[in-house]
């Protein structure tokens, strides 16, 4: 009998959260359609691994790695991946805001449009 373990519930909740973030960013136009597809595929990939762990065994076998799922390792990678994404988006918008401020300041003596 197949039962759902705690890690699958927690993991699925996190993945849905992560995907909802991407979707919201897509809706307010700061993520492109290609970006949405890219991130969706990544999160769906993790979802598959979460519910059909045999895929990792298959992949591990293909690569010649003996051990199957090392849950903590995978969870760590997922979280890191997500954080890097967040930081990247934040950093970019910060850079743009700084430029905007510097630009407005430098143009203050010119006639307004």
């Amino acid at each position: 009998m197949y039962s759902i373990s705690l890690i699958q519930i927690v993991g699925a909740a996190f993945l849905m959260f992560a995907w909802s973030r991407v979707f919201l960013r897509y809706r307010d136009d700061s993520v492109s359609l290609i970006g949405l597809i890219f991130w969706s595929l990544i999160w769906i990939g993790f979802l598959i691994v979460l519910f059909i762990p045999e895929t990792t065994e298959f992949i591990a076998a293909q690569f010649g790695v003996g051990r199957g799922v090392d849950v903590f390792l995978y969870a760590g990678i997922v979280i890191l991946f997500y954080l890097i994404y967040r930081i990247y988006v934040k950093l970019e918008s910060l850079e743009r805001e700084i430029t905007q401020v510097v630009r407005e300041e430098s143009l203050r003596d010119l006639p307004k449009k």
Partner: protein
Amino acid sequence: MGRWNLIMNTWIVIPAYNEGNTILNVLKSLEIAGYKNIIVVDDGSRDHTFEVAKKHAKVVVKHKLNRGLGGALGTGIQGALRMGAEYIITFDADGQHDTKDIQKVLSPLKRREADAVIGSRMIDPTGMPLKRRISNRIANYVTYFLFGVWTTDSQSGLRGFNRKAAEHIRIRTNRMEVSSEIIREIGYHDLRFKEVPIKAIYTDYSLSKGQSFIVGIKTFAKLLMHRLIK
């Protein structure tokens, strides 16, 4: 429209970062060629760029922090629009462009054949070092692969826009990615686009200011991330 009118409503945007040694000659040669409307964007230089520019350019604005080529170009174009420009030319401060080429870039705009013109150094790349030729070619493929617009010189600093194009093009990136970004915007807004051959004057100095291989790789990585995420 006579040549005089054309010069009067044409603004030349020069982004400059620590170009104190070369910008004087660039400004003087533009003066001699008859271009009066010049806006220099001093991108937070630590040398005497600002003081030199102040003496020879009609408008000089200064970024308090260095924001990179994209940031400076965006400021210059916006400044030129505020000054009422009908045509905007971007021109490098390192002395690699010939003032005679400005007319070549302007004339398709003036004849209303194009909204955006890029002066391509690659149509006749005589004098361009082989390494440069190869890296420019790679940049063109990358630009085409990411944004679907083919240019022979996506990284050229001599460009021309009419007012409509300048108002549409939104520059979001701050650094060297801007050259490819402008091309993307041309494609995105369906602007009529043309290339004209120009000459590049290569000196050791202007070569040292261009993109090195490492910077090129960084620029590519940034463009890729923009395509995926932004």
